[in-house]
């Protein structure tokens, strides 16, 4: 429910009239199929080992992710690679949801 509410809010933010900076939310709050971009300092809350590993695995700055499966593990797609993350790690990665494409 929370993920759906955030998705709706995010849509209204992009398609509506609200003028404010994009909302950054934890990765684990995205719904299945939702896309988001990873911004600078998105991984700052993680310990260095995990941060470096995730960055090297492709979860680097400005990359776009798609949620294949929320929960534990949280499975995301980065380019053509799928990464599985525990929920506690996904909760500490801040992303900016991408608005759904216009039909």
């Amino acid at each position: 429910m929370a993920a759906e509410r955030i998705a709706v809010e995010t849509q209204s933010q992009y398609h509506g009239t609200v003028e404010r900076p994009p909302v950054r939310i934890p990765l684990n709050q995205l719904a299945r199929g939702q896309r988001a971009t990873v911004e600078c300092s998105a991984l700052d809350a993680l310990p260095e080992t995990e941060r470096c590993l995730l960055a090297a695995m492709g979860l680097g700055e400005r990359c776009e992710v798609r949620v294949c499966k929320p929960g534990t593990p949280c499975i995301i797609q980065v380019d053509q690679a799928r990464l599985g993350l525990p929920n506690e790690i996904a909760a500490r990665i801040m992303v900016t949801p991408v608005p759904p494409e216009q039909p």
Partner: protein
Amino acid sequence: MNNRIALLGNPNTGKSSLFNRLCGLRSKTANFPGSTIEHQVGTCSVPSGPELTIIDLPGIYSLRLELPESKVCADCLDGKIGDGRPDAALVVVDANNLPRNLQFAASAMRRGLPTVIAVNMIDLAQRRGFQIDAAHTSRLLGVPVVPVSARTGSGIDALKAALAATVLSQAKPAPQIELPDGEPGSAPSVRWAASVLDAIAAGSAPREDDTQLHDRLDWAFTHPRLGILLFAAVMSLLFAAIFWFAQYPMEWVDMLFATLGGFTERVLPSGILRDLIVFGVIGGVAATVVFLPQILLLFFLLALLEDSGYLARAAFAIDRVMRRFGLPGQAFMPLLSAHACALPAVMATRLIPSRRDRIATIMAIPFMSCSARVPVYALLTTLLFVGRPWAAGVAFIGCYALGAIAGIATAALVGRSVLRGSPPPMLLELPAYRLPNILQAFRIAFDRGWLFLRNAGSVILAIAVVMWWLSAYPLVPPPESATALRAQAAQIIQRDAATAEALDTQAARIEQQAQQAGSFSGKVGSALEPIFAPIGLDRQLTVAVITSFLAREVFTTTVFVLTGAGSDAEGNESTTLDVVRSAKRDDGTPLFSTATSASLLVFFVLALQCLPTVAVVARETGSWTWAIGQLAFMSVTAYLLALVTYRLLS
């Protein structure tokens, strides 16, 4: 070795398949000094070119991560380990995931070695609508870039030629576009890869496969309940297949060694040398090598599962359960394979990245009921539940459950005391679903089998010879009763050959019994009897338990020999069991009372009676402290619980 080429790349780029394409079967598995991280070394022939030595390094995401695999790769490229700096590097990149793979290639090129880039899985990328201009990419990066498909073999000849030319010319990378300063994942590296990709692929990117189907499969395989149910079903099928298909080759191996032993016995004159070869070398090695078919099948099927992309998902499903006991999800496969044999299971823990988790898993592995325990369980449960096969079956399963519970409890205990901390969170790349490569699976099974045989030919052989000597010497003269039986047999052999043969067999058993009692191991048995008496063992059973430290299944052989069982003239199995069941101690009481059988069963479930396992644990943990500590802990636990069982039932 000359013309050494380090093969490196991200995991799941088809690096090992490419290695196999380049080297075929001309390769061996090795470890870098002081490390348990494996690498393969193979030889690659180039038509009208030099012979190349390819070093297949572990798949890594960056050369600078604080992970043992990354450190080994970096040290190898820098010439700090192995035979010095390699002559060139071959970087494998996945054509379907170039943004990330190019960043890794850049970090490898920065090391300054002459480099060749193989763009693998190009056939799949082309089917997905992705085109790459290899010549332009090569000019831009200043190194040869060769599109290949390790799966189909396309582009392999061109790759070999490029490798040979690079090794001979020793041309260092001369990129037209400056290499990024940061490591893969850093902002400069990401920007660099994006600009290169724009230049070489004109913005085209591979289309995605059926993401809906893959999402659904991922959901099912990693689901907290459904995922575990599916995993249990897959593993049940796997182990049923192993036990079913392995039984025939196991019989053939058994027959082969029996024939070899028989032949040697006939050819060599009787004496110490013949006994050493027949009973020490052939008999001792046969007891272990008989499990080779199970090990080959296990690793073949596991390789198929891994290559299909399923195992990485299953590790996530099981991780949730394992984590409660301080073990990571990756520990499940070694623990499961330990039900075939603890030796390859301990070696399989190399897949677990964290040393803490690896040791915690190794501490749990020998508690799992391996194949060698099966004959012992079968004998003792049959003795415990005469005429009640269903109860014997339940007890049999109970042994497996007790071992698994004790193993996981030990891991939890070790994780909360000696190895403080919890397993690091599991971050895994989930490989794409695909049809497994059967040749690759054969190769993995072959490698593991060879490693197992090498172990059998060194550590196990040495132990077998020592144990044989301890049980065969000093030579004990035949007892009077045996001599009398042989004389009686000689008198009646003309009239009644069958009875004479039976008398001879009986005499041989008495002689063997006397030899067992008078041998060094027999004397040790007598000396140790007071220790084992509280759990219900007499001198004969103490000898059987002591000799089973060679290999657990030796227990049944020793019991049959000591009780004078074996086979009657018709080879009737029930008669053998009847003899064991009715065997008496020196004081006339039954050898196997209910309390003794149950106590022995508990002891065999929990005790580490496998010296080869102790040797392998010492090697894999890099310390005899862990190995001896584990032996002591398991022995004390087994003894105490056997004591409780004996006291409760006697």
